[in-house]
């Protein structure tokens, strides 16, 4: 295998997967072809304009109405060139799209504005995932709300996250260290900070990471609620859990610090005291009561949590003192 190129070359990001090199070869070959065409055609244009510019007096233009040989030539030659390009692009595309059978499968879910990951052994994480270096990884990507797109520049890959549908993307990392993930399909307010990291690790480090992200069981309601809050719900993308001094952002949704028992002003409905029923309604059907000063932006989570999970989630919110 070719040694991956870790430098940013020709403006392309570092090569961090087995297929990035093949991508760059095609990219740079096409760039050479385009530069050749650009120089040839623009050069001819500039030369003609200079050589045949009108210098006063009688116009000396020579009428040449057409040349069938030339027309055929400059139709057929580009046709062969682009068909070659098409075939090369299609071959690479299939390599990029079809994962090997032994790949590690990780489920990826996009939601406003968070990526969450779930491993075959149950390990869960948000906004970062770890993968062992040199092993093929298959991502099964979906979305909980609107369209997103999982984009890893250093792997030269992206795939849309479509609700109710699974799209597949795969890669075999060759470069240790964190790889940047962007959301590439516009998804609203925080689209431009919907980042994640893929940590490419040695096997030992990867195993440690997996253990640290083992699923939280439901025997401890608050710890379980915290996990649901951060990963399954992704609630911390919009709701801050500490005081404004400690955690200025995010403020898209109401701050949950010391929320339970507090009085909230509801748009068009006056004041109420936050209790269990208000919290449950605000999770399942947030449009019912919109707190003053906030936009009605939260998607309904009805059906997403079991009764037990809802209880633990509320226990966790109560614990934010």
């Amino acid at each position, binding site marked *: 295998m070719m040694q991956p190129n870790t430098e940013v070359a020709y403006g392309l990001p570092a090569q961090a997967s087995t297929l990035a090199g093949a991508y760059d070869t095609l990219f740079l070959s096409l760039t050479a072809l385009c530069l050749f065409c650009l120089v040839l055609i*623009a050069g001819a244009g500039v030369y003609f304009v200079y050589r*045949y510019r009108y210098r006063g007096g009688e116009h000396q233009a020579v009428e040449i*109405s057409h040349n069938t040989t030339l027309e055929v030539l*400059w139709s057929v030659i580009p046709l062969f060139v682009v068909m070659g390009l098409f075939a090369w692009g*299609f071959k690479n595309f299939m*390599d990029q799209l079809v994962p090997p059978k032994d790949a590690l499968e990780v489920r990826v879910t996009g939601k406003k504005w968070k990526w969450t990951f779930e491993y075959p052994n149950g390990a869960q994480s948000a906004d970062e995932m770890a993968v062992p270096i040199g092993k093929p990884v298959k991502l099964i990507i979906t979305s909980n709300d609107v369209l997103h797109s999982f984009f890893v520049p250093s792997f030269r890959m992206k795939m849309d996250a479509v609700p109710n549908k699974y799209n597949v993307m795969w890669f075999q990392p060759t470069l240790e260290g964190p790889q940047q993930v962007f959301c590439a399909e*516009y998804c609203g307010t925080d689209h431009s900070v919907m980042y994640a990291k893929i940590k490419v690790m040695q096997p030992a480090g990867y195993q440690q990471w997996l253990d640290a992200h083992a699923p939280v069981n439901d025997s401890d309601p608050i710890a379980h609620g915290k996990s649901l809050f951060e990963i399954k719900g992704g609630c911390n993308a919009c709701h801050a859990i500490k005081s404004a001094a400690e955690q200025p952002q995010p403020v898209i949704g109401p701050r949950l610090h010391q929320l339970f028992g507090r009085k909230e002003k509801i748009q068009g409905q006056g004041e109420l005291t936050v209790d269990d029923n208000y919290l449950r309604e605000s999770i399942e059907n947030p449009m019912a009561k919109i707190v003053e000063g906030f936009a009605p932006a939260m*998607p309904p989570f009805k059906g997403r949590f079991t009764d037990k999970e809802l209880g633990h989630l509320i226990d966790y919110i109560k614990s934010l003192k």
Partner: protein
Amino acid sequence: MTQYTPSSSEPGQRPPNFWNSSRGIASWLLTLDHKRIGVMYLAFVWAAFMLGGVFALLVRTELLTAGKTIVEADTYNQLFTLHGAVMVFLVIIPSIPASLGNIILPLQLGAKDVAFPRVNLASFYIYVIGALIAVYSIFSGAVDTGWTFYTPYSTTTNSSVSTMVLAAFILGFSSIFTGLNFIATVHRLRAPGMTFFRMPLFVWALYATAVIQILATPVLGITLLLLIAERVLHIGIFDPALGGDPVLFQHFFWFYSHPAVYIMIVPGFGVISDLISTFSRKAIFGYRAIALSSIGIAIVGFLVWGHHMFTSGQSELAGMIFSGLTFLIAIPTAIKILNWVATLYKGSIVLRTPMWYTLGFLWLFLIGGLTGLYLATMSLDLHLHDTYFVVAHFHYVMMGGTMFAFIGGLHYWWPKFTGKMYSEKLGNWACATAFVGFNLTFGSQFFLGVAGMPRRYYNYLPQYEPLHQVSTIGSYILGLGFFMTLICLLRSLSNGKDAGNNPWESTTLEWLTPSPPPVENFAGQPTVDRGPYDRHAGSGH
């Protein structure tokens, strides 16, 4: 030889023309004259262009620094959406056909007017209503979906999507009416002796465009109606939460919007063909190849929409077919560029402002076309899709291509329909300024895209900041260039020299009649017995 006898008039006195034939606001608002309707379209298109331009400059200013510069994220999302929607639906689609096309097409055919003058006026009012609704939507909670209105974001966001979508729906009818009118006019109202292959290439291009307009626009209309139905009546069509399919929307949307790309650029091809022949003082090279390649693009353009969806999870087989067909479009496009460059060969090239815009167009469109090859290559699209590379590519084609052709054509035909000559010096400086600004603004964005910068980003990582700053500075220069263009043209109305019938020694019919033309266009019926760019077959007049 081509025959036409202009009416005689007293020397020193302006003969009656379509500007001074009748007076008062009502004579404009109720006019059936294609030239007056074209002029009104022109004014509205420029007003919309300035509005869309202000949105663009605000977007670029916000991107001057990696974090917040002037506005919040939600405002930024509205600004780029409004920029896109205004520029596509209110500026580029109507720009050349509805303004220059309306004014020039009947003149080039030797006709008195378009086939259906009342439908023409109706199309203008539909455009105005659509434009007003679009502007209203800005104040009623500006839309924040991107001009593509992708579901399910567009069916769930709280901004005024329905209003903006309704505006686009209404604007579609304006486009259909203009298309119908041009097709009927070309078939029924050509001057005696003007066969299809004696039509100027501008007419060919408008004809090809009109075919796309009337076949593709209804699909957009239906799609947008379905979107409104889903938002208002909660019928599940595209929103997965209601049992719909969001990718279906993309199919419907691009089934219109990819052909719409050709609605935007093909008229520009026509302008460039006329200009490059005129300013090379010789017939166009490969007339039939250019004429038929427009039709080829119009047909194949209907079959490539899936190339917008290589990363949507559509089947590999479908992707393969769409990629192959997309590459096929490169051929008629290459044929055009090569024929234009060949026209320069052994010409007598007169470097006036319209020709500078034409040469600018060739450079920008060449880059726009070549970078399209990257995106058609399925593998390369996986990295470049939804990055600034795409933004740069379509601006080179739509803005560099269409707008440079539009403004070049505007300078070319300005003396004809205003009777006034603009300042060549200011015109050249404006063109040069816009050209430099354009390449800085969008040239830098190719590099941003290759480096992985996604589009529609309010914040970005610090490594992208230098290129963003180059782009923003370029956008200010570009804005200045277009502002100079506007000043140049408007100033000529008060202090421009009289243009005379044919200041460019052009060969097409519109230059035989006085500038500005009389209401009936020609005093008698012109007849045609030669090709549109034929300088030597007969002495003519």
